[in-house]
């Protein structure tokens, strides 16, 4: 119960920060719509649905990346990891709360992006929507873990895409192919992995 309470308090903090700063979500929204617009011009007329769907997945992964890059900026700039990891709260709660917050931003961006995609291109089917929902879980689970690594480095914004994109390839495969079971498998494996290893990423000493 304490654990859930901690996660709730931390996630609430992240949402509050975004509500005040209004940086991440507007950027993600504009980015995803711009990307879809570019894809319209990049695709020759009469392209198959599969090709359009592939571009949707690229847009979503890069949009998520944009949000993930910003995820730990407040913690980094104000030295908050120092304060957070000294509290008795489990370090994995920080990961879970941040994942929930990024998931909320990503879902909000997709609520706009998916109808826009349907309007711009050839419509959507239920399977794609389900795949997007499942893929989001894996994206934020892995992305938050790597995001915490990237902010510790000097390269920061540059580093996250390098760490994250190779690991996101299976998500794109599962999404484009509509293999829901595979996305569930990915989510489960890497959520457990990130949950178990996050404390090593943020805390130097035991």
């Amino acid at each position, binding site marked *: 119960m304490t654990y859930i309470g901690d996660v709730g308090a931390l996630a609430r903090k992240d949402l509050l920060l975004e509500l005040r700063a209004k940086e991440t979500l507007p950027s993600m929204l504009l980015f995803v719509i711009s990307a879809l617009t570019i894809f319209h011009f990049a695709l020759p007329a009469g392209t198959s649905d*599969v090709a359009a769907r592939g571009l949707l997945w690229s847009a979503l992964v890069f949009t998520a990346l944009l949000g993930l890059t910003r995820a730990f900026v407040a913690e980094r700039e104000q030295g908050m990891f120092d304060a957070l990891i000294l509290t008795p709260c489990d370090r994995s709660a920080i990961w879970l709360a941040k994942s929930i917050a990024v998931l909320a931003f990503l879902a909000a961006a997709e609520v706009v992006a998916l109808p826009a995609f349907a309007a711009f291109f050839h419509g959507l089917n239920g399977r794609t929507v389900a795949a997007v929902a499942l893929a989001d879980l894996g994206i934020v689970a892995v992305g938050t*873990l790597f995001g915490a*690594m*990237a902010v*510790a*480095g*000097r*390269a*920061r914004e540059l*580093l996250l895409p*390098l*760490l994250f*994109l*190779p*690991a996101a*390839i*299976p998500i794109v*495969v*599962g999404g*484009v*192919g509509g*293999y829901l079971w*595979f996305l569930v*498998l*990915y989510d489960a*494996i*890497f959520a457990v*992995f990130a949950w178990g*290893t996050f404390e*090593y*990423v943020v*805390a*130097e*000493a*035991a």
Partner: protein
Amino acid sequence: MKLPALTTVAFGAAVALIFFYAPTDADQGFSQRIFYFHVPIALTSYVCFGWGAWKALRYLRTRDERADLESYVAVHQGVVFGALTLVTGSIWARASWGVWWSWSENQLVLFLVLFLFYCAYFMLRYSVDAGPARMNMSAVYALFGVVLIPVSFLAIRLSQRFIHPVVFDSHAPSNMTGAQWLSFLVSLAAMLLLFATLYNVELAGKRIDAHLRELRELLGRRLDGGPQRAQAPALPAPERGPS
């Protein structure tokens, strides 16, 4: 000194077997012999990544700096063998199908993904200051890699269903004869021995480096002095001296 000698012998034997003993493939001809290099190199690369992850786990358990270095060296060797896998695979694709790259070859695509993933390992290490934080992150990332290998492999297999209208004939021999097996296994042994040798050499080099640095610091400290301690109420001692 036994290991380098053994590696040389195994390598000589492997080359001799591959070029003079293994039968020439009926379909692909002489160029098929690169199979005896390509596949053992690929398998060795997996062994490197696996060993690196094992050492990473050891590091997270024991916080022993040596395990961090060992994990780093293993991943480094893995990337070297991984690059060789890509090169030999590309040559093979060129020789048998006339193209430098084939997305229908699962192993090759997987190595591209792994190569990208593990190159980022070095970016991570160079980006973070040396110390326990970097060791922790490197270890977590190296562990992530071995979990990602089977997941990516599965993903690439799945992707074949909707990405490739044209599938080339798989170019690994389907039914290997005894002679082929022998050449293959000796080559594999030679590659694994090569990894062990390179691993030891690089590790020894890094350790000598670290040792040298420690000696230099020790020497520097004799000249500079360390933090000085004073009991209250004495005033802090401003003068320097050996601690």
